[in-house]
């Protein structure tokens, strides 16, 4: 079999893939906002003074991190309706992405929180700040900026996993490419284009993360 890249076909499918990429970007952005929030909740729960809360949260995070995202997507989409929680495929997919990457983000936050010197807590206590104020005004503003690059890496990772939503027939890039391929029996162009799309944005985001990293370093004077 000889191989030839079909430019006419490429032109034909590019607009369709372009439209589908909007869904991919939507899933990425909303999924990551969710992940960032869930991660913070997990991280704070893991600092709880109650040992059972700490251990249970740790176990949940460990569980989510050790099992495949694909099965978690199925779980949210197929199992939750049995308990009366019904949602469309896109919502289910985004929720699963948020939960999965939230458990990763919680570890990142935890590293950031662990790096706050003990003196900061002690100073807050000495000033008689409430726990909430201490977290809100003293600890979190110091803990988050240094971990932004690590969070950025998970944003890229989440982005690259959005093709999994094709498994529950969300019409994102991969699903669209597969449908195009099965209609025309030409898989090379759609799948390669999807690959290039991901490669391009991954490289761009990786460069952005490095920029942020460098900027943070100068801002904090390497302290």
């Amino acid at each position, binding site marked *: 079999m000889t191989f030839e890249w079909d430019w006419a076909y490429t032109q034909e499918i590019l607009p369709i893939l372009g439209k589908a990429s909007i869904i991919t970007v939507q899933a990425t952005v909303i999924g990551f906002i969710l992940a960032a929030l869930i991660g913070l909740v997990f991280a704070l729960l893991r600092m709880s003074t109650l040992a059972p809360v700490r251990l249970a949260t740790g176990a949940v995070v460990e569980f989510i991190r050790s099992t495949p995202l*694909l099965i978690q997507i199925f779980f949210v989409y197929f199992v939750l309706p049995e308990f009366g929680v019904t949602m469309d495929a896109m919502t289910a997919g985004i929720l699963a992405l948020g939960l999965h990457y939230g458990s990763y983000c919680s570890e990142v936050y935890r590293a950031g929180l662990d790096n706050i010197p003990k003196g900061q807590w002690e100073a807050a206590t000495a000033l008689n700040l409430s726990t909430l104020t201490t977290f809100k005004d003293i600890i979190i503003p110091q803990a988050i900026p240094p971990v932004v690059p690590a969070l950025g890496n998970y944003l890229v990772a989440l982005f690259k996993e959005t093709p999994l939503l094709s498994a529950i027939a969300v019409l994102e890039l991969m699903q669209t490419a597969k449908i195009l391929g099965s209609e025309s029996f030409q*898989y090379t162009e759609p799948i390669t284009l999807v690959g290039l799309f991901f*490669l391009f944005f991954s490289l761009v985001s990786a460069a952005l993360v490095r920029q942020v990293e460098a900027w943070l370093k100068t801002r904090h004077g390497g302290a």
Partner: protein
Amino acid sequence: MEQVQSRLVVAIVLSFFLGLMVATFADVRVFLPELLRGAWITIQITAGGIVVAILAALAAAIGKMYGPRPVRWLAITYIEIFRGTSALVQLFWLFFVLPYFGVTLEPFTVGIAALGLNVGAYGAEVIRGAIQSVDRGQWEASRALNMTRMQALRRIILPQALVAMIPPWGNLFIELLKATALVSMISLGDLAFKAQQMNQNTLKTVEIFSLVLLIYLAIALVITSLMRALERKAAKGLSRGRG
């Protein structure tokens, strides 16, 4: 410490629920054997993928660090492409596109190759970081003893880099295990595939997907504890002393 405790809690909860399920659901007898057959495929692909990943990572890391220019570029291209695109895209590409180039592989082979190469690209950076973390004096001593770079790498540097590599590789193996679920999408009968199949056949959605999650967790726990043991063993070999 807390990490270990969490893992212990996970293990206890896991065995409790597994026991509860087998005891409660009569239908378990219907779908459990199928799921276990799927789990066996999952384990095989994970094992195969691990071998491919280690070999690819070693070649790419050494190629990138010490290869002549063409080799270095090849290694960088491999690493960037496989880290820059999705595992699923890579899997589909090898499965759907490669035949157009006249290369048709079994789904099983495609699964191992795609996942192994994907994880190998991340592993290459792990190996590179670990090699760079070895004290420069070790290279200088090897050079003063007139060893070639490859002799120094193989006999002196890599054995010491190994200890630093084991924990990140443990994480990568878990990622690989999780990624094996993707092969269900090229109709390979792994655990994720059987889960969907049994779900359609029996409609025992809750039981099946819960059980499948627990089986994945069990395999992950086995990998984690194996890597822990390996880490302890390797650390012992090195703890006899910094030179």
